[in-house]
């Protein structure tokens, strides 16, 4: 029975997506029904798993490597998360996209996105996981590029896909290593890999996760991805695209070796600080939230590095609800003022008090204020780093990340709430909120998610029992980490609320605004060399093609002479052949009409045949 339910959890959104594309009408109705059906299926799976059930669905794949969908507490919990967040975001999107003319394309792609993510979390084998991993890349490319006519959008979409795909090579090679070592493509069977293959695979998985979860130094694409519609940001920052990276590491945690764990912890720690500072200095609300996402995923990686993936999972779940709430709130502010620049949003909170309260609750939850959900998940992370062997590496990162979270959220709240008198006088008109279409739908989606963000912590004990891992015992709300976390969060909030960012960041500010890009970032380190390489090839092609310059002048020093004689020999011969034939043909054309060089070509065949036959004759005798 439950294998049908697994199929429905994926197929319902997928079918809705295809149906929307086919019938091209009622996109909203179809999208919501498909999503609702998928949600019911996920909840049914959750019910089944919590009563001890588990199931597996085998599908035909490659020879000896079937595709698998599995229900385990972890996969089903994540599937439910995707379905719940997805549903609320879709409800919100109904309002947000009310006046957009391309609802068909929007809702079809959103549901494809959700279906791909469901496949990713429920996948039980590497090939299916890899496929879903790439498909969420595709759907996010289509969604980020949704308004493809706007300036900057196509490059944002292209960059998002390219950065993540470059990092995906890590996943490809890791998968090859794991299958080669264990002879199986089943994820569970590959998790008992150990030794060097495990370290190599673990580090390669980390690269893939760094791409998807936008970890330093691959964090830059996520901020640019804000070019897409807000519901897209809400979805891809919470339960889908970005989550995939952390989910990958959480699922493969049993296989990660101590060396790998340390590297993961450091990458996460550096990211949480670097992107936290970027968020603090950011002038645009949505870009700030994007940087904050990287920072929070950095904290999750710290937890994984500390050896407590459960803490990372709890934070992932809490963060999903919180961050989607924040984006949905930001979307309403955006519709009110037609901008996302913080300075121009000054005081918008007073005009939309209900939305602001929701936004503020989510912000406090993210900062880690009890009894909101973020407090408990962050507490778990700090506790994990306290109990870890690498406490002196991980704990400072965890605390700094918490402090920064408080600071940038307080700064945003302060700007959204306080009216600046001088500013208001200057731009009286433009700062007036205009009425927003579809506010009811948006409010409903937001309310649902904020509620989730507030109360989710109540479900944490149940989740721990459900997951029933030995690691669950590591997580208890202890006094020391709780106090440490609370102090960090509160001091962060106070700093952010009272101290202007210029004072806080000082000389770091301009660098932070530049995304802490080192040596020009992705462009200089990856794109330029690739294009240079391409131009090199093209140059080589021209040399080949025109046969003018010697090949040996460029290219490798080793074997230069051999290459020169070979290439020039072959090509020069052919070109002189072509040219002389063409010349001959041109001359001959004055004497004879008709397509002379066809005859010539046939003549060539004939004479070569005769030549070949005489050669054979020679060989025989």
């Amino acid at each position, binding site marked *: 029975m439950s294998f049908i339910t697994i199929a429905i959890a994926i197929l319902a959104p997928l079918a809705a997506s295809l149906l929307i594309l086919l019938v091209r009408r009622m996109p909203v109705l179809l999208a919501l029904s498909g999503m609702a059906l998928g949600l019911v299926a996920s909840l049914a799976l959750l019910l089944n798993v919590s009563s001890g059930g588990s199931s597996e669905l085998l599908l*035909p*794949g*490659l*020879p*000896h490597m079937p595709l698998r969908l599995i229900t385990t507490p972890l996969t089903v919990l994540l599937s439910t998360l995707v379905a719940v967040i997805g549903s609320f975001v879709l409800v919100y999107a109904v309002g947000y996209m009310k006046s957009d003319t391309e609802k068909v394309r929007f809702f079809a792609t959103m549901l494809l996105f959700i279906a791909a993510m469901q496949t990713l979390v429920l996948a039980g084998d590497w*090939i299916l996981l*890899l*496929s*879903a991993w*790439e*498909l969420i890349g*595709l759907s996010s*490319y289509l969604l980020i*590029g949704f308004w*493809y*006519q706007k300036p900057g959008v*196509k*490059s944002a*979409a*292209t960059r998002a*896909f*390219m950065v993540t*795909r470059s990092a995906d*090579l890590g996943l*490809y*090679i890791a998968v*090859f*290593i794991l*299958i*080669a070592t264990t002879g199986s493509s089943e994820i569970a069977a590959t998790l008992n890999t150990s030794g060097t293959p495990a370290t190599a695979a673990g580090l390669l998985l980390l690269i893939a996760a760094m791409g998807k979860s936008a970890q330093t130094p691959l964090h830059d694409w996520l901020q640019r991805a804000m070019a897409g519609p807000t519901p897209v940001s809400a979805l891809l920052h919470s339960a889908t695209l970005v989550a995939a990276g952390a989910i990958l590491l959480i699922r493969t945690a049993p296989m990660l070796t101590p060396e790998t764990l340390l590297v993961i912890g450091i990458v996460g720690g550096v990211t949480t600080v670097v992107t936290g500072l970027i968020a603090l200095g950011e002038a645009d609300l949505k870009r700030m939230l994007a940087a904050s996402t990287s920072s929070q995923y950095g904290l999750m990686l710290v937890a994984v590095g500390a050896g407590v993936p459960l803490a990372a999972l709890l934070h992932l779940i809490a963060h999903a609800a919180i961050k989607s709430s924040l984006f949905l709130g930001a979307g309403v502010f955006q519709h009110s003022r037609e901008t996302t620049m913080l300075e121009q949003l000054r005081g918008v909170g007073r005009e939309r008090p209900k939305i602001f309260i929701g936004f503020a609750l989510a912000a406090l939850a993210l900062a880690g204020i009890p009894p909101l959900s973020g407090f408990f998940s962050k507490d778990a992370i700090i506790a994990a780093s306290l109990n870890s062997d690498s406490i002196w590496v991980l704990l400072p990162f965890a605390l700094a990340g918490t402090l920064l979270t408080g600071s940038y959220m307080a700064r945003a709240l302060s700007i959204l709430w306080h009216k600046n008198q001088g500013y208001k006088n200057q731009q009286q008109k433009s700062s007036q909120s205009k009425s927003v279409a579809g506010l009811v739908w948006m409010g409903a989606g937001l309310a649902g998610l904020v509620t989730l963000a507030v109360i989710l912590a109540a479900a944490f004990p149940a989740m721990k029992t459900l997951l029933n891992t030995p690691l669950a015992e590591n997580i208890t709300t202890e006094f020391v980490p709780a106090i440490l976390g609370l102090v960090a969060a509160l001091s962060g909030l106070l700093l952010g609320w009272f101290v202007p960012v210029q004072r806080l960041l000082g000389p770091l500010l301009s660098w932070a605004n530049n995304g802490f890009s080192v040596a020009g970032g992705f462009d200089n380190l990856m794109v330029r060399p*690739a*294009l240079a*390489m*391409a131009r090199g*090839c*093209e140059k*080589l*092609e021209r040399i*080949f*093609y025109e046969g003018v310059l010697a090949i040996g002048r460029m290219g490798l020093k080793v074997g230069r002479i051999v290459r020169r004689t070979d*290439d020039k020999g*072959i*090509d020069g011969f*052919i070109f002189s*052949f*072509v040219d002389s*034939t*063409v010349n001959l043909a041109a001359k001959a054309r004055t004497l004879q009409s008709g*397509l002379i*060089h*066809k005859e010539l*070509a*046939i003549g*060539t*065949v004939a004479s*070569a045949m005769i030549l*070949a036959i005489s050669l*054979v004759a020679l*060989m*025989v005798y």
Partner: protein
Amino acid sequence: MYPIVSTTVFLPLLGALLVLLMRKAPPHVVHGIGIATSGVTLLGAMIMWARGVNETGFAQLEQIDWMPSIGAAYRVGVDGISLPLVLLTALLFFVTFIYSAKVRKQSHAFVALMLLLETASIGAFVALDAILFYVFFEVSLVSMYFMIAHWGHEDRQRAALMFFIYTFLGSLPLLLAILGLYLGSDPYTFDMRVWISNPPLDGLAAMLALIAMLITFAVKIPVFPLHTWLPAAHVQAPAAGSVILAGVMLKFGTYGLVRFAYQMTPDAFREAGVVILIFGVIAALYGAFAALAQSDLKRLVAYTSINHMGYIVIGVAIAALAADPAIRATALDGSVLQMVSHGLVTGALFLLVGMLQDRAHTRDMAQFGGLIKVVPILGWSFVLAAFASLGLPGLAHFPAEFQIFLATLQVEPIAIIAIIGIVITAGLYLRAIAQVFLGDINKTVYDNGATAATLPDLNSRELLALAPLLIFTIVLGVAPGWVLDVIHTTTIALPF
């Protein structure tokens, strides 16, 4: 049993004769005959598919004595390596005939030539006699020469001649190798099955024969540095010619690489395996980078062919180097599937570029922009085909490339650097999509007086030609099993 293989091979030839007899028939009747003939041929290929293959070598054998004194006979049959290619060939010709129904320039000659080319192409894949194979191989060459020289674009004559001489001179070494294998066999025979089950040459003779064959197939595939004919020929060929050239004729090279080089001189192939692998890696990377530098959409697609065919060379070399039969089968499965995937995807891409060129009389990407709004069906089809070509899961190239790379890592881990190619192709296709289809609508007025904003979307003829390729691209990506099972039946049973 009814000789369905021979029927499938020679049906197009019959159609060609019919076209030549009906000299007075108007173009649409002639095209009708072309479409109908290739349609029935496709049906024949499907019946061949239904009859299937077996583990013991070649199935569906048909044989007639021809020149018994020298051991040459008409012998045809299929195995898991050739059967998918036969089906692919029949499908590609069918859609090409539909697409070309607009050709008015000497439509009799065009249809007859295409049908002749179809017979030669299917014949080359089913031939089990080396002489027969060589004849089909050369006939296809002549037909393609006329196709480019007569129905091509602006600089067609030079490109056609270059194509002809390059591949013709390239195929002479194969003839020598065939004769060498013949002289090595005892008793003398041209039966390829005998050469495969009992390789006639060894030592230096085998290595020389292998080198000769490698030269021929490297030109055909094409492998760097013998690829320079390809961009020129593709750019100048008519869209129909490009589809067949890339979709079918490049496969002669990779098919020959497996059927002749790998199967008939297996020991020499294994010895030279590393060298072949290196050439494959270079071709894959070079093709990708060269494609990245193109501004002509058709040249871009042509160069990605070099990249994709490079993966096949890698796969075959890895199969030869692998000690474990399971890994060898994986590598070969991937290679053969890649041939099919490449035919479908690149066929679709060349059709789409041809459709763009029909409309705007240019292939320069800088002259386009924002087209997805103007021609949404064409645009989204291109996006789908481009993502298939860059190896997105769920589309045709992924299962093939996955298997090739999986085997590569297990046999020669260092060769996995070729996987960088999938990032480069992603980059170049995304750039092409962004430049041609996204952003603002280009204001350029084209040669034919059209502007980007007034281009018409696909008509039903074009849609009909394109749809089968795109549908199979998805089907093969989602459920490659039905093709892989056929391939695997043969590859797992190979004795070496």
